[in-house]
């Protein structure tokens, strides 16, 4: 594993040194939930197989370094295939982005239960009339919950009137109380 990883990181030396920071920052962006670097930008440097390899290994390396907080000699051990110049660049990037990577990894750890809320959205609607009443003027809340379960996202959409919303808020507040007592 280690040999392969080194090989993977060693591939980085194919990239000119002045493009290296941009690539690394893009990989880190990917870890932090934004866009990964695109193959079409680096197609001239690596072939597809190498690309996948270098991407995977760089990401794994960054995750491992920040997530485990490894000591300096361990890092040097893993980086010894690269020249000192590349090593310096990599370490600089990592140092600069450490808080963000840490936050992203922590976020992942926090979302550890089998199903968790990834995002939510709400809309307030005013129903002007219904099939029975010509003027209704009933405010309705449309709540969308994005629940991630076993890695797949299932959207749940609920429409509530005022009382239902109040009861939902009450139960959520009770749940929050329980959680804050755990602290």
């Amino acid at each position: 594993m280690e040999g392969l990883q080194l090989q993977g990181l060693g591939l980085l030396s194919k990239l000119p040194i002045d493009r290296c920071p941009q690539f690394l920052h893009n990989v880190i962006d990917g870890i932090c939930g934004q866009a990964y670097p695109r193959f079409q930008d680096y197609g001239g440097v690596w072939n597809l197989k190498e690309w996948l390899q270098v991407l995977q290994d760089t990401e794994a390396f960054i995750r491992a370094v920040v997530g485990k907080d490894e000591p300096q000699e361990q890092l040097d051990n893993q980086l010894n295939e690269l020249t000192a110049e590349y090593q310096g660049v990599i370490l600089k990037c990592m140092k600069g982005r450490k808080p963000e990577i840490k936050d992203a990894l922590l976020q992942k750890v926090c979302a550890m239960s089998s199903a968790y809320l990834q995002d939510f959205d709400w809309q307030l609607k005013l129903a002007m009339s219904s099939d029975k009443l010509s003027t209704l003027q009933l405010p309705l809340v449309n709540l969308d919950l994005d629940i991630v379960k076993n890695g797949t996202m299932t959207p749940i959409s609920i429409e509530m009137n005022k009382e239902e919303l109040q009861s939902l808020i009450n139960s959520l507040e009770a749940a929050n109380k329980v959680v804050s007592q755990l602290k």
Partner: protein
Amino acid sequence: MEEVDRILIHSLRTCGTEIPEEVQSVRQFTTEIIVEAVVRCLRVINPSVASNLSHVLPPGMSARFRIGTSLAQACQDLGYNGEVGYQTFLYSSEPDIRALLIFLAEKLPRHSQEDAHQPAGKSAVLQREIASKIKQQLSVPWIPPMCRTAAAERSQSMCLSHRFQGQLLSLAGDHSAKSIPPERREYWEKYLPLVNMQLPHSYTLVASLLERNVLDISAVQEWEAEWKSQGLASRLSAEEYRSRKRQRLQKRIQDQLRQCNQQLLENNTLSAATQDFVDMLKSFTVEGETDQNKGSRFTHAKKFTHQQDPQVLNEQMQRAAESLSRKDAQNADTEEQELTSLQQQIELIEQEIQGLTESVKVLHLTLSQVEEETSKMQQGCKEKEDVVRVKKRAVELLPDAENNLTKLQAMIDSSTQRLVNLAGQWESHRVRLVEEYRELRRVHQEKEDESSRWMKDVKDLYDKIRASADEAKRKEELYKQLVSEYESLPKEVSRAAYTQRILEIVSNIKKQKEDITKILSDTKELQKEINSLTGKVDRTFVVTDELVFKDAKKDETVRKAYKYLAALHENCAQLIQTIQDTGTILREIRDLEEQIETETAKKTLSNLQKILEDYKAIKQENTLLLGRVREA
């Protein structure tokens, strides 16, 4: 009349009539304005009646005539009991129009005017705004996407139907802060993309920014709330409190995980709930490793809960590397075989380990038991040795018992003496120490009190700060609302001025009434005087008549005098009659003059001319129509 006209014009303007600025009184109203004003009022009062009436005067004479009649009919339907007809509108006279317009203005629904003046609440303002916005958007037709202007783009494009979904943004922090490492600063300066370049879709930008903002704000708020409720009470500095809390939480989590792991080891079977947990534990390790050594899930678990020494890690890495390289070299069959054999091996080893740990546990238990026994035995041995030593000494001293006894006595005496001495010394020391202790305790207590007082002050201050902030915010909002209300108020109309004027008018009327009563009483007095004077004249005449008549039979001159008297009386009566007649004629003249004035006010002449012209126009139209009929 001017006041009345101004109020009337204002209320006509509020119901939608366009009256030019220079028109200041009803006298200046043209036929067009009159028709428009009446139609607008009717529309406000009763939309169904006036819906088929146009507020623009048509050019054709006969159409004008029809509109005048229908307007008059509508006014009569509303309950106007004055004289009204088409001529009221087409050939207007000022008082008629004024009376009609006043009637209509009174009929206008009150609440619509009051609404505009009442201080509107926040929700009312919001609702009104929503209503107007919807109305405006409904009135705009659909425009194809390529032809949209910016405003239409906002209201009709699909961007509103996008979900409000934020994404994490990477933002630069405070550059001037000292604690930021230079690498981070360099990243911010050179590589950090602009906020709108960080997102895959531009429409998520607003959502992301808002979410980020809310995130920051709520983090600060939560921390403040916690700090005020618990942090201050713990009397630690902020950093200490944070680190303390972190430690507590870490310990708690560790306990939980250890407990769970223990259960896992004991049960050795995976229920659905524990499977979840194990999956989670697996995912913590580096992703690349997980799929290769599935069998050793306990090693993962252990790795997470206990600090692992680097050697074991290295071994694992090597093993993983080997298996990987082999995987590349050999085909799938042998790999499978190897995998199963390895798994078997692992299971065997695990069983062995388990057996060994069991035996280690048992051995530990026996070891501790044996240790306890030995310590007990050593204790007993020591006690026995002491007893033996005392007995030995006693046996040694036994031969010279008397002497030794006195010696012992002396020794005991001296030691008691010493003991007393020491006790005295101790006592003096103790007193000092106790005093010191008390003093220190008192000081501590004082400090405690002081600090709790400070604490209370700080809390009060916090509360005060928040209260004043809230207050400020509320006042700000109130101010804004009032400003908006003030701006929405019509500037030129003020209720107070109206009421003041009404009061002035009322007082004027009162004064006039007093004047009238005074004049009336004067007139009455005058009448009375006149009556009494006439009575006196009559009586005097009768008396004089009798006296003179008596003497008239005897004397010729007296008879002449009598004649003169009668003539005088008659002339005087005639004179009075004439004066009275003049009075009535004067009154009549005045009445007539008034009538002439009202008639001239009715613009009869010009109206007549207009009527004549209109008559001619109608004639012309009729001939035109006739001609057309003939042609057809």
